[in-house]
């Protein structure tokens, strides 16, 4: 049947707690594109045949497979989804400057936020505290970008919202692991997180803070 063929035309290879993979799954849900979720357990050291075949260069997830062809790189996937399913509301705005800003700040999240978060979980003592201070600094920069708008995309949930919101599922972990009071440190961002949490896509894709913290403790072997 045509409907069934369309339903398996899109596959996402990912792991439930992968913040980068959540971007791909959020984009597809926002666009109402049905997809098959194939889980790749990152706790297993060796990558599966599927991942090695579909992403031989990086052997990483997420991977979007559309009509048999792989797209790799989380932000790349989001742009691809936005361009292919272009009749539904666009994640990237039309204006070139706004697009550049969204891409710049999404790249900032990749260059700065993830790295500081990883160092926060893997280091101890002074280095851990320094990583958290850095991380909060990055998040405050992002608060300044958001200002008093509902979303980074303005009135609409957009590209940068998709790029950043998965990291909010780690905020509970920052509090438990670092004694940080996120509401006090980043109140503007927390308001945005709650607003995003009203969306079905975000509620369905983001795991609970507790589950994220538990599995990251396992990965990083903390405490």
């Amino acid at each position, binding site marked *: 049947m045509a409907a069934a063929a369309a339903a398996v035309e899109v596959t996402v290879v990912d792991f439930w707690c992968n913040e980068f993979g959540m971007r791909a799954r959020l984009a597809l849900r926002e666009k109402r594109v049905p997809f098959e979720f194939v889980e790749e357990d990152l706790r297993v050291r060796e990558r599966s045949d599927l991942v090695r075949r579909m992403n031989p260069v990086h052997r990483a997830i997420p991977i979007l497979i559309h009509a048999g062809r792989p*797209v790799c790189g989380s932000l*790349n996937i989001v742009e691809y989804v936005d361009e292919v399913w272009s009749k539904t509301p666009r994640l990237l705005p039309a204006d070139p400057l706004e697009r550049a800003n969204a891409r710049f700040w999404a790249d900032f999240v990749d260059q700065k936020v993830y790295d500081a978060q990883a160092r926060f979980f893997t280091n101890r003592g002074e280095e851990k505290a320094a990583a958290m201070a850095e991380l909060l600094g990055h998040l405050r920069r992002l608060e300044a970008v958001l200002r008093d708008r509902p979303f980074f995309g303005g009135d609409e949930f957009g590209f940068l919202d998709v790029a950043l919101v998965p990291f909010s599922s780690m905020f509970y972990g920052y509090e438990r692991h670092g004694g940080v009071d996120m509401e006090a440190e980043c109140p503007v961002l927390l308001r945005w997180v709650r607003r995003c949490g009203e969306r079905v896509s975000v509620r369905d894709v983001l795991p609970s803070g507790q589950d994220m913290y538990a599995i990251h403790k396992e990965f990083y072997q903390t405490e």
Partner: protein
Amino acid sequence: MSPPVKIIGHYASPYSHRVEMALQLKGVPYELIQEDLSNKSELLLAKNPVHKKVPVLLHGDLAICESLVIVEYIDEAFDGPSILPADPYDRAMARFWTNFIDTKFSQPIWLAYWSEGEAQKAVVKETKENLALLEAQLNGKRFFGGDTPGYLDIAACMLGPWIGVLEEVTGVTLVNGNEFPALCQWAKEYSSSEALEPCHPDRDRLVAYFTENKEKYKMMAKTMLQQ
């Protein structure tokens, strides 16, 4: 009348060069403001407070940072031949490989040129594996973008003018014609491209720059590989 276009850049930076290439391919006139990287200007710090790096594109009052973000902006903001392909899957492939260049390729090749001894062997091996991947992407084409230079050619510009200079200054040969004939041919196509000729870097100036900074880069590479 379109607002003036300027680049805050540096003649020895391939990232800065990417922006020049993009404007050149679009036929957009621009002014290049040379930055002294050892003494960063108020202008640079004001226009790129987050990263404090070149290149920065100034388009009237607007400032755009990060070379690939700038190139996509140029493609979208100005009329002229398209830099990125039209088809979404081809665009995704171009973005995949430009991301590869920035996140996996650039650092090892830089380290391969400036390091020595045992530490150098591992980065040379990694670099050759990466070069082989890019070699395969050319697949008989003149440019990564096909008959004319495109997004990936711009991103890979370091493999053009810079390789010859680095190999001369360091004495290290990596991109040889035996192992990487397509990349060597690409470098020739690049240097003889009429479309890109106006923004070709001055080879002698690059040689002088890298010779002057040789000891500094060798020290940096040594420190980085010790970590």
